[in-house]
């Protein structure tokens, strides 16, 4: 081994070692492990720090987009729907489990999974003079859009709206 090339490589050795040699090997292993652990933490810190940069930029851009995002056709913001007060029938397009856990007060459950069973009770509660606002979880949830489309096509209800932001928007998130 080249004495000018200082390494910490410790080849496996089948020969019995003296106590001093064993002690030296153990010390070298401890130094090796300590250096490796320091290396891991150093690299971890670099990765955690580097990931912050695109995350912060992404968050800033999304905040900007959310402020500027226009309504799509058939959508209504939660503020507008609240202003309609009693002239709204809320329709919950989420699963029964989520509906039973918590829902907008007075909302009627009508989801695609139980459409046949739930459409009857919905029609009993429906009033043609009221606006129908359908909601689901929010974000990219498409259940409310699907239910709203079915109402327009199958039930021929025209004044159907989809709540922009869904349940999360109602909760103010």
């Amino acid at each position: 081994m080249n004495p000018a090339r200082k390494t910490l490589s410790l080849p496996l050795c089948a020969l019995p070692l003296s106590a001093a040699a064993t002690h030296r090997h153990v010390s070298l292993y401890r130094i090796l492990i300590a250096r490796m652990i320091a290396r891991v933490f150093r690299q971890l810190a670099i990765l955690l720090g580097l990931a912050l940069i695109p995350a912060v930029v992404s968050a800033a851009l999304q905040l900007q987009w959310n402020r500027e995002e226009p309504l799509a056709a058939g959508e209504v913001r939660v503020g507008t729907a609240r202003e309609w007060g009693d002239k709204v029938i809320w329709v919950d397009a989420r699963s029964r489990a989520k509906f039973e856990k918590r829902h907008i007060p007075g909302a009627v459950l009508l989801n695609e999974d139980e459409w046949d069973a739930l459409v009857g009770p919905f029609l009993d509660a429906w009033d043609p003079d009221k606006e129908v606002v359908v909601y689901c979880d929010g974000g990219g949830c498409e259940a409310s859009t699907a239910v709203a489309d079915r109402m327009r096509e199958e039930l021929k209800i025209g004044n159907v709206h989809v709540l922009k932001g869904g349940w999360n928007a109602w909760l103010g998130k």
Partner: protein
Amino acid sequence: MAGKVILLALRVALAWIFLKAGVLKIWDFAHWRSATPEFALAIQNYQIVPWPDLTLLFAVYLPWLEVLTALALFTQRLRLGGIALFSGLTILFLGALVSAWARGLDIACGCFGKDEVSTDFPAMIERDLCILAGLAVLFFFEWRRLSRAPASSKT
């Protein structure tokens, strides 16, 4: 030589998993919009993080961490840290899955964006355990490579 090829293939496979997972949580290509709200909802469904602001923080930060960790596997200077971080994140996700399964939650994993709706917990846990096994192999060989490197090498 064959060993190097196998290790490279393992790195590529593991990096691909995390890269795909991270990218699909950042952007919804089907609707061409940010996928952060869906990922935030997926985190919320696990009912582990009690504060909505912290959920949003994780939803914004974790995907980029996954992407960078995947890329780190291909750099010599950050590979060991990448493997350690990859392992830590996998253990975190595994813990969340086990917790959700134990509490009987019927939720989407959220591991690969909003299109993954499977709630087959045993399969997902098995998948994560396989990933951890692959990472253990990579870690062993990387440790060995670095322990033989000159002591003056940086990072």
